[in-house]
């Protein structure tokens, strides 16, 4: 699936990975979080090889309707990663409730995921990923299955998650097929090419924070970066013999 993909993720960075579908974006995330062992090469976290899911890494899956346990209430879904935290039950509940509040989810703790809207379900999934206070948050097309309005709302939720924890800043690796979203959110965008998936470009976004949907997206720098990424992808496709534009 992937070959010759080498990159570093800096601490506290928000990194997006874009590329055509089938280029191995999801495989890359599964490698990063230790769900799939690499057939060749290695994934290092603070210099140590990742062989299985490390405690410090949390993953948010694309499809909330498949990643939340339908037989568990919202709070018990969120408490799942705390199993190995060695906390007392009361502390676990308190932590889960706190992270639900942070995600703007009020009064849903005892509900079941399927009683909530799609956007709220994905917030629950993000809350679950954050509850164990991971150093690295991985997201696999996290806003791919919600409507456009909810999507921009969740993008800003993610920015808040990234910015809120100044003292213990969370590092985020975010996979998407939406180039504008990647530019809007990230410090840096990696572009993958397909067949086999490999690293094509690494582009620094250099837009100032905090980012605002309207102002950021209409700034010249935003347009320049997104056009650069589009150009990179288009030229790769031409080289690969596809119909270029």
């Amino acid at each position, binding site marked *: 699936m992937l070959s010759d993909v080498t990159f570093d993720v800096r601490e506290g960075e928000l990194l997006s990975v874009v590329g055509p579908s089938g280029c191995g974006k999801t495989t890359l995330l599964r490698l990063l979080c230790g769900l799939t062992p690499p057939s060749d090469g290695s994934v290092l976290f603070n210099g140590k090889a990742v062989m*299985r899911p490390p*405690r410090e890494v949390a993953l948010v899956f694309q499809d909330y309707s*498949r990643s939340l346990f339908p037989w568990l209430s919202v709070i018990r879904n969120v408490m799942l*990663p705390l*199993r190995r935290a060695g906390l007392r039950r009361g502390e676990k509940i308190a932590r889960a409730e706190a992270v639900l509040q942070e995600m703007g989810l009020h009064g849903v703790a005892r509900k079941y995921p*399927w009683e909530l809207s799609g956007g709220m379900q994905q917030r629950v999934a993000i809350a679950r990923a954050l509850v*164990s206070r991971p150093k690295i948050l991985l997201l696999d097309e996290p806003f791919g299955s919600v409507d456009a309005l909810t999507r921009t709302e969740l993008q800003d939720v993610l920015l808040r998650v990234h910015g809120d924890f100044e003292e213990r800043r969370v590092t985020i690796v975010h996979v998407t097929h939406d180039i504008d979203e990647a530019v809007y959110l990230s410090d840096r965008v990696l572009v993958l090419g397909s067949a086999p998936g490999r690293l094509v470009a690494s582009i620094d976004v250099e837009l100032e924070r905090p980012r605002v949907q309207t102002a950021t997206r209409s700034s010249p720098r935003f347009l320049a970066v997104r056009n650069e990424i589009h150009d990179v992808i288009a030229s790769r496709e031409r080289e690969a013999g596809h119909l270029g534009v």
Partner: protein
Amino acid sequence: MKQANLVGWLFVVLVTGLLEAGVRLFELRDSVPAPSAVLRALAEGVSSGTLSGEVGTTLESYAEGLGLAIAAGIVLGLVIGSSRTLLEASSIVIEFLRPIPAVALIPLAIMVFGLGLPMRRFVIAYAALWPILINTLYGARGADRVLHDVARTSGVTRLGRLVSVTFPAALPSIATGIRVSASLALLVGVTAELVTGTEGIGSYMQRQQLAYQLPELYAAIVVTGFLGYAINVALRRAERHFLFWVGEGRLAR
């Protein structure tokens, strides 16, 4: 069963009425008892305790046999279903043992366990095991991989995932297996009693047949049918209560 099935019960009353009229009209009482006579025999059998005692005996071996099958079927199904190697290793044995009618094992079971309750328990458990085992197997294999991945990245161990992911995910199909087994177990249990003629509804039927007491024989048949019906209703209720999440969501986007 949202509410009482009125039309269904009306139909029962209608058929019973037609039967009564037919038996009286055509003077068939020597070969077919009138429903009224059956009901009288039923009331007598229940009030005197002879029939209800036999029902108790039947239900005892039924519950024990089915309980064993449920426990064994779920544990085996989950373990085998979550390992490709075990599934391949056991598939031939399962497909060989499964089609053997439990009734055909009665002679063997009598030699090993004698004529009493242990024999019936074994035969019932054998018959009831397969639908539960097979359904659990498929349910376990069908569990969404994403849920397993979530559990793995959340640090849940392999055994923990078996209990908290595979088992609940397989529950809907386990419930189906139990419902199939529940009627099968009653069928096999009554048959085993009929063959050995020691105790239970089946042996009650056999005795009434030998004594040519048709209303009593039919009363026992009616009771068996009603047991099967009641068990099915109870299981459906339990399913709706415990599997509250099934069919919910997936639409709510």
